[in-house]
């Protein structure tokens, strides 16, 4: 899964820890979200999008060959 978390985080001058605190998760979870190696729940995806003033669709994009 591709994400724009890192790009939007930089736009708002947020560290990974800042974003983690806003979303209510650990910094490591933000790290794995940015890498695209962790698939968040819908609830977490919503909270992350809201914290970065964007939408889920804008923040996350699925690859056609995404596997669980």
């Amino acid at each position, binding site marked *: 899964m591709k994400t724009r978390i890192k790009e939007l985080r930089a736009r708002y001058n947020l560290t990974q820890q800042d974003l983690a605190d806003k979303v209510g998760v650990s910094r490591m979870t933000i790290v794995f979200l940015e890498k695209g190696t962790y698939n968040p729940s819908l609830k*977490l995806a919503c909270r992350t999008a809201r914290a970065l003033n964007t939408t889920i669709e804008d923040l996350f994009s699925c690859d056609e060959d995404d596997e669980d």
Partner: protein
Amino acid sequence: MIAKPEWFEQRKYSGWGVTPRSWQGWAYTLAVLVLLVIFLSIPDLDSQVRTAGTVLWVAFVVLDILPVMVAAKKDEREYKNEAIAERNASWFMVMVLVIGILYELIISGLSHELSINWFMVLALFGGAIVKGVSNYRMDQKGC
């Protein structure tokens, strides 16, 4: 309660329990050990008093740390990973318990004195009951 959740973090790579993550956590751990050592070093201390004191101290520390473990904050990724790790650990323990019970049955059967370790049987069936109840409650909640 003396120990605070923010002083500790849950162990992930070395068994169960907590490990200090701030200077307060390390100070607490050191104080627990030093006080126990001082108590055990008292000369001419009656052995029963020594045993009782040690048991009470350990019980106090366990009761103090348990709320810390319960209150440890985890996000959804950490809960999921913890669940997978605990599942893997329980499968291993179930396997060892089954092998242990069968081994005892075979060995005792060969000597014509069938004996069962009821603690191991209780652990196995108790675990099965806990698993069933957990799944039932999650189904009821719609998880």
